[in-house]
């Protein structure tokens, strides 16, 4: 059974069957990553372009590893900032690169909608590696894979996303996918960090972190990014840490069985204390490993589609 689309633009439009297929296929690649030789010849002769218009270390590294482990030829283009500043239209910039004929494009951009925009003028398959505050589907899929690896199907599980939801593509993709898979999704953070009408996505809102810990099976904790307007949403990092930060004491008191995820990089001492970041509740490094497997699965499913 192939994916129903030739792109992965976001999880809002991805049918639940496709999400399941990706998660199931990822298991195959998780096994490949345990082999002495972690490389398979599947995408031999295909070229993948990593088109990163926004700084990224982890996601880009993870994609590149996934691509290389599938034996694809990999080319990278990284450029921060808008094409506007260079006096070149985005379309021209991209057309230039695409004319070099690639099979798959992995794209990250600070403007929402760019992956969708790309599909209009290239035949390549597009994978969204994060567009603005819109979606980051591969991150959400690896989060879900990691949760299910640890505690089984997310169906019926209570999962809370903590942090600056309004500016988080990770939150949005997680909400879309988790809802489809039947999880009970909630968000936690100061009201200034909640997008409007978030309730319409069918999620519950917590403003008490202790309650969020007590009432959920999983917390997916987002990085507090002061560089992304969050500066005006909270008084300072100290106050955030005191009232929304997660530390071992809060977990011990409220819910010792909680599972903690974090997409990284962690702001230690802000959203997570070190005793949690390194503690027994978290699966942060599993997420990193699983990230490669999930991205291999997506590349495989799109790359071998006819």
């Amino acid at each position: 059974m192939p994916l129903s689309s030739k792109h992965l633009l976001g999880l809002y439009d991805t049918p639940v069957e496709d999400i399941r297929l990706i998660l199931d296929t990822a298991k195959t690649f998780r096994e490949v990553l345990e082999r002495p030789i972690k490389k398979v010849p599947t995408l031999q002769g295909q070229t993948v372009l990593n088109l990163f218009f926004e700084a990224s270390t982890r996601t880009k590294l993870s994609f590149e590893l996934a691509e290389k482990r599938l034996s694809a030829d990999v080319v990278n283009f990284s450029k921060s900032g808008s094409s506007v500043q260079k006096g070149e239209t985005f379309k021209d910039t991209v057309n230039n690169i695409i004319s070099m004929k690639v099979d798959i494009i992995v794209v990250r951009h600070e403007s929402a909608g760019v992956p969708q925009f790309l599909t209009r003028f290239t035949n390549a398959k597009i994978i969204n590696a994060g567009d603005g505050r819109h979606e980051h589907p591969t991150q959400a899929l690896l989060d879900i894979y990691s949760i299910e690896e640890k505690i089984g199907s997310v169906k019926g599980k209570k999962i809370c996303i903590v942090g600056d939801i309004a500016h988080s593509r990770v939150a949005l993709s997680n909400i879309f996918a988790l809802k489809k898979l039947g999880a009970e999704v909630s968000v936690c953070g100061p009201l200034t960090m909640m997008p409007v009408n978030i309730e319409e996505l069918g999620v519950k809102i917590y403003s008490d972190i202790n309650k969020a810990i007590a009432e959920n099976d999983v917390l997916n904790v987002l990085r507090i990014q002061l560089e992304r307007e969050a500066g005006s949403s909270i008084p300072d990092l100290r106050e955030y840490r005191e009232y929304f930060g997660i530390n071992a004491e809060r977990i011990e008191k409220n819910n010792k069985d909680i599972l903690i995820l974090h997409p990284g990089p962690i702001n230690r001492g802000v959203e997570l204390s070190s005793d949690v970041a390194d503690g027994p509740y978290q699966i942060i490094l599993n997420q990193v490993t699983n990230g490669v497997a999930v991205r291999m699965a997506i590349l495989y499913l799109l790359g071998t589609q006819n």
Partner: protein
Amino acid sequence: MKIKAQIIDELGIQRTITRLAHEIIEKNKGVDNLVLLGMRTRGEFLANRLQKKIQEIDGKEIPTGVLDVTLYRDDFRTRIKQPEVSVSNITFDINDKDVVLVDDVLYTGRTARAALDAIMDYGRPKTVQLCVLVDRGHRELPIKADYVGKNIPTSINEEVKVKMKEIDEVDGVFLVDSST
């Protein structure tokens, strides 16, 4: 697909597996260094049955794993349907082992080629041997089975279908017409 004839029945399959088990033990002068790798899907069940049979004969449970070769196929570009990929399950070390690769039907030899590539990514076995229930001919690569349950000469319009109770309703080997 129209079934033209049944070639081996349930009892026949049992007998064949018994014979193949004996041949494997004989050729390898025992089972101490032996491991079995069944190729998904029916090769896996065959490998499990062989494992049991060998244990009955020799008393030893030899390591048996599952190999999925989808990622090593050479026909992604030409196939119309995307092949389903699933997990390989090899929980033991294959370095310096005598690996017996088990599959239901040997045809073009391309799956066996893919399997050889896959095995090499797990380590460096001492030998790799190929055991199939049916060899139907029409090889496209220089590959030959070490153990063959039955040679069934076929035409290109025919297909050999192995059914096993683990997944199908019956045990048996059938000749089917694939031209329609």
